[in-house]
C-alpha cells in the first residue's frame, strides 16, 4: 500500500513537470515553449509557434540545400551546433530543440534565438534583416552591415543616450512594413561596454569564457511594432571622417537583399518569391543609406551625432 502511494505520488510529479509550459511574445509572435527562455517577455494567448524539447530528425527527407551546419527544404530546416544542440524548424510553427548531453542552457538558447529563429521568420514569409533597430521619433531605423561593423555598438550607444531599441542582431519586418519588437536583451562585446562605461562584472557572458555579454535593456526597450523609416548600412573605410549616400534603384534593392539575415536560407527554404515581394513592397516606403565610418578609432558619440544630424533621425 505504501509503495503504491509512493508510486502514484512520483507519477503525479512527472505529469506536472511535463505539463509545465512557458508562453512569451517576441518578434510579433506568441511562442509557447516547454522550457524556460528567460530572455523573452512573458505573455498570454494562443501560440503561433511551439518550441519543444525533443528528438530532432537525423536528416531531412528531401533536401533543397545544404550548409556546413544545416540542411533545408521547403518548410523544413535542420541546424546542428556541435556539442550544443540540434534545432529542427518546420512550417514556421514549430521548433524542436535537442540539446547535447552536458550542453549549457544559455548556449542552447543563444543559437535558438539566432539562426533557428532566422529560419522560422523566413518560413513565415517575414523579412529578417541582420541588424539592430532603434526608435527615433515615432518610427524605426535599422542599422545593418557586415559582422563586426558596429551594428549593436551604435544601438547600445543610443540606448546609453536614452533612446529605445526594438531588436538586436535580427530585426524582423512584417507585412505591414513595421519592425516588430524582438526581446529586451542585447549582445555586446567588452570593448564597447568599456566605451559606454558599463561594468561587465554585473553582466552575464553569452557563453562561458567569451568576452561578449548579455546586456538587458528593459527600461529602454520599445515593445510595440513601429513603421520602418530608414535602413542604414554601415561600412568601414581606412580614412578619417564619415560619409553617407542615399541609395536608390537596384543598389537599394541589392543592399537590403544582401543584408537579409542568412540570405542563403532564403534560397534553401524556397522563399525567394515571398522575400522578393516583401522587399519590393517595402523599398518605396523607406529610405536606405550607406554610411561609411573610419575603421578605427571609432568615437561612438561622433558617429551617433553624425547619424542623427545627417539623417535627421530626431525629426
Amino acid at each position, binding site marked *: 500500500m505504501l509503495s503504491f502511494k509512493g508510486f502514484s505520488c512520483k507519477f503525479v510529479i512527472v505529469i506536472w513537470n511535463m505539463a509545465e509550459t512557458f508562453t512569451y511574445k517576441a518578434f510579433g509572435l506568441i511562442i509557447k515553449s516547454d522550457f524556460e527562455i528567460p530572455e523573452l517577455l512573458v505573455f498570454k494567448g494562443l501560440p503561433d509557434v511551439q518550441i519543444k524539447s525533443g528528438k530532432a530528425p537525423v536528416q531531412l527527407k528531401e533536401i533543397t540545400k545544404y550548409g556546413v551546419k544545416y540542411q533545408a527544404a521547403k518548410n523544413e530546416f535542420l541546424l546542428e551546433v556541435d556539442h550544443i544542440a540540434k534545432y529542427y524548424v518546420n512550417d514556421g510553427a514549430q521548433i524542436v530543440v535537442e540539446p547535447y548531453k552536458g550542453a549549457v542552457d544559455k548556449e542552447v538558447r543563444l543559437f535558438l534565438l*539566432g539562426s533557428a529563429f532566422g529560419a522560422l521568420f523566413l518560413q513565415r514569409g517575414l523579412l529578417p534583416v541582420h541588424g539592430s533597430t532603434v526608435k527615433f521619433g515615432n518610427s524605426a531605423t535599422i542599422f545593418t552591415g557586415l559582422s563586426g561593423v558596429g551594428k549593436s555598438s551604435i544601438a547600445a550607444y543610443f540606448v546609453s543616450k536614452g533612446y529605445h531599441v526594438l531588436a538586436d542582431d535580427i530585426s524582423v519586418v512584417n507585412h505591414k512594413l513595421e519592425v516588430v519588437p524582438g526581446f529586451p536583451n542585447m549582445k555586446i562585446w*567588452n570593448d564597447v561596454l568599456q566605451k559606454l562605461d558599463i561594468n561587465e562584472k554585473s553582466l552575464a557572458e553569452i557563453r562561458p569564457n567569451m*568576452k561578449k555579454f548579455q546586456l538587458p535593456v528593459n527600461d529602454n526597450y520599445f515593445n510595440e511594432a513601429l513603421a520602418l523609416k530608414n535602413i542604414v548600412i554601415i561600412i568601414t573605410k581606412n580614412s578619417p571622417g564619415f560619409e553617407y549616400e542615399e541609395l536608390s534603384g537596384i543598389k537599394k534593392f541589392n543592399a537590403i537583399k544582401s543584408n537579409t539575415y542568412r540570405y542563403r536560407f532564403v534560397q534553401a527554404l524556397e522563399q525567394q518569391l515571398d522575400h522578393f515581394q516583401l522587399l519590393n513592397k517595402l523599398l518605396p516606403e523607406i529610405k536606405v543609406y550607406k554610411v561609411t565610418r573610419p575603421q578605427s578609432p571609432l568615437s561612438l558619440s561622433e558617429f551617433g551625432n553624425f547619424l542623427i544630424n545627417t539623417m535627421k533621425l530626431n525629426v
Partner: protein
Amino acid sequence: MYKKNIIWLASYPKSGNTWFRIFLTNLLSDSDTPANINDLTETSISSSRKIFDEYTGLSSSDLTFEEIDRMRPDVYRMQSLESDELLFKKVHDKYYSIENDQALFPAEISKGVIYFIRNPLDVLVSFAYHSARPVNKMISTLNDSNYAFCDNKDKLQNQLRQIIGSWSDHVKSWAEQTNIPVHVVRYEDMVNSTFDSFSKAVKFIGLKKTETEISDAIKMSDFSVLANQEKKDGFKEKTIKSKSFFREGKIGDWRNHPEEIIMKEIIANHKDVMMKFGYLNSKNKSVF
C-alpha cells in the same frame, strides 16, 4: 567526389600577395583597362566572416576561435563543391592542423598553393610602415611564434582569427608541407624577373595564357598603376594608420634603416630559412 579547384595564395604579410592577386584579376578579365584595385572581392579572402557565416548558417561572432577553426575546412569544401571554376583564395594563416590531424586547408579540394616569400629584412620595414609602428618595434612580431591577426578576445574584429606565427614558422609551414602541391615565388624574382616569375606561376596554376596576355596583365598591374589608383581612390586593404599600401615595393629598402642590431636579430632568428631561400650568402650577409 571532391574537385581539386582551389588555389591558395599564401604568404606572410607584405610579401607580394596583393600584387599577384591584382595581376590575376587583370589576367582573367577581358578588359583592356587595368582592373580596379578595390574590386578584389572581399569574398576571396579565406578569413572572411561573411562567407563563414553564410556557409555555416551560424554567427562566427557567437563562436570561439577553436570552434571556427573546426568548421573552416568544411566551409572551403562547400565552396569548392559549389564552384565549377578555379577559386583563388588569399591566405595569411600559416598551414596547420586542427584536431584529429585535419588540416585547416583540405588537400582533397586543393589544386595547389602559391607561396609568396620576401626577404624578411624588407618585410620588417614594409610591415612596420603598414602598421604605422617603428621598425625596431616590429621585430618582435616577426620573431613571435604566437603572432596572429584578429585574435583580440575583447572585441569583434572584421575577419576570422588567423594564426600566423613567426616569419620562419610561416614559411616552413607552407613550403615544407607535402599535402598540397606548392610553388614558391620570391618577391625579389617578381620584381627582377617579372615575366619569367609570373609565367611560371601561371603555368603552375594550369592557366592557358599566351605570352602577350601575360605581358599585358603585368603592364596593367605595374606598381605605378597601382600607386596612382590608390592615390586617386584609396585602397581598402590599407590600414587606417598607414599613409599608403603601395608604398615603395623596393628591394633592399631595409638598408635605408641603419638599425644594424635589429637586422642582426632578424638574421639570428631566421638564418636557416633565409639561407634556404637564397636571402643569405655563405658569410651570413643579406643577398638583397
